[in-house]
């Protein structure tokens, strides 16, 4: 199977910083340097680059080519994966596909963004005509609409979300790369008492922007073996869906593409939710974590709160979840943020989790969420299952 003939030979990440004053090329350079250092590859061995877009440079064309030039690379394959929070995991699948097609053999994946230092993002989509005139407040407004409908259909339990908030924050306290602004303990009451932004979305439901970068080096398995790397991680299952129900005018807003993307990823990996050792779901809002647990089959639709209540998600618990703090407690690196939980999963499978190292490292599941549709759930869903040297 093509996906599994590729490996992640290394990972890299910068600290997440609020208003760092930096910009994406600078942090991207740090990521490449770190990957060359940790993997022993030389720059000339890299023949492919995949980047995610950056809020800091979203109005530019030629983003990937600029990156190639700024990093002094000469490449046979270059692409930008424009899938929002699905970009990082989506880059692994695309790197594997490009390698399998013989287009290149070693791909650098760089996700770098500095939204709190430079904001250059505009929408050319439905917003100006159809949601801005009625004051829909970006992602919190859309997740407010989603949450209220979920509450109507199943009942929304703030206590379950409070547990996720506290669990993730405890993990961020153990993560030196998490944004310092967020590295203070919170309690259940802090979550429940945080002010309403777009009811029923509270402040502590929401992710906060920070500047940061992350990346991976993806190469052919035989190259990794020949170099006698002592450790690498293999993508063993992947599923991706954009615009689920896109041909229909009426859909259930509480459903998204993770149901079918997850089913495909599990089938390819030969695993079921019960086999997963640690889970690293994309987290822009806490309810997104609960919805993904339901859609991926960890529990049934509407039973997320019960599952959360019964499960210990701490790094040393039954099902470790977002062990770096997730984006909500580590900071969201703009359009590079999808790489934060992905890199954490890879780090855990490398056994390099330090004070938050999980016990079981036979596999890890990572997801992405990208884009928000008009009056619907999120637009893109990816599910990636990883295993060490499978």
């Amino acid at each position, binding site marked *: 199977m093509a996906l599994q003939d590729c490996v992640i030979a290394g990972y890299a990440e910068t600290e997440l910083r609020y208003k760092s004053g930096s910009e994406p090329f600078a942090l991207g350079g740090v990521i490449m340097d770190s990957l060359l250092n940790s993997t022993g590859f030389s720059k000339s061995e890299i023949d492919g680059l995949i980047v995610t877009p950056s809020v800091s440079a979203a109005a530019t064309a030629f983003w990937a080519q600029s990156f190639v030039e700024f990093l002094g690379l000469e490449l046979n394959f270059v692409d930008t994966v424009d899938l929002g929070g699905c970009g990082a995991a989506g880059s692994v699948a695309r790197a594997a596909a490009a390698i399998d097609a013989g287009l290149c053999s070693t791909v650098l994946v760089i996700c770098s963004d500095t939204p709190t230092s430079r904001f250059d993002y505009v929408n050319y989509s*439905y917003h*100006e*005509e*159809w*949601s*801005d*005139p*009625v*004051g*829909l*407040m*970006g992602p*919190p*407004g859309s997740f*407010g*609409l*989603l*949450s*209220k*409908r979920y509450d*109507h259909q199943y009942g929304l339990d703030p206590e379950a979300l409070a547990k996720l908030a506290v669990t993730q924050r405890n993990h961020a306290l153990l993560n030196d790369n998490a944004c310092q602004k967020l590295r203070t303990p919170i309690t259940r009451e802090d979550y429940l008492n945080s*002010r*309403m*932004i*777009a*009811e*029923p*979305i509270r402040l502590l439901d929401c992710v906060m922007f920070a500047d940061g970068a992350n990346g991976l080096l993806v190469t052919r398995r035989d190259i990794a073996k020949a170099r006698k790397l002592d450790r690498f991680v293999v993508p063993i299952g992947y599923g991706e869906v954009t615009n689920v129900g*896109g*041909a*229909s*005018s*009426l859909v259930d*807003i509480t459903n998204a593409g993770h149901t079918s993307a997850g089913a495909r990823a599990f089938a390819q990996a030969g695993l079921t939710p019960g086999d997963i050792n640690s889970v690293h779901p994309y987290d822009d809002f806490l309810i997104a974590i609960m919805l993904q647990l339901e859609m991926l089959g960890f529990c049934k639709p509407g039973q997320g709160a019960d599952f959360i209540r019964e499960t210990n998600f701490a790094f040393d618990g039954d099902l470790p979840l977002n062990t770096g703090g997730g984006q909500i407690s580590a900071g969201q690196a703009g359009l590079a943020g999808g790489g934060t939980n992905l890199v954490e999963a890879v780090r855990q499978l490398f056994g390099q989790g330090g004070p938050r190292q999980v016990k079981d490292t036979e596999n890890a599941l990572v997801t992405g969420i990208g884009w928000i549709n*008009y*009056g*619907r759930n999120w637009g893109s869903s990816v599910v990636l299952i990883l295993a060490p040297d499978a």
Partner: protein
Amino acid sequence: MAKLNDTVDVSRGSFRELPFSHPFWEASREKRLLLQQCPRTGQFQFFPRPVSIATGRTDLEWREVDGRGEIYSYTLTHLGPGPFKGQDPYAVIIARLDAGVDIVSNLVHASTEDLCIGRRIRPYWMPLDDGRHLLLFEPDSEVPGK
């Protein structure tokens, strides 16, 4: 019953139309609601697109509907962007029209009790500076299916 904070007085400024939305906005000048309908499937769609989302074909037709429906979901916004700043909290709703489309809008001329899922609603056309109207919704006392 407490009055629900309204957005009727919030200036919406000017905004551009995409070309395939133009019939909607022209009809809004007369407070008529036109929706795109796919002639092959009968499916209505909103927002306007260049093709039928059902078939992918460009042979869309515009049909007038009465715009009645119900609240599918809502959120009370507390940090309104742009001209909505200081007007909060205000209600953004998803209106599920009987014609079979969802429209993101505001609920106006309502009490706090009206802001609930399943509440019957009808169009309220809010005047824009350029003669067009913005499609908002208000509570509807008529029984559905008449």
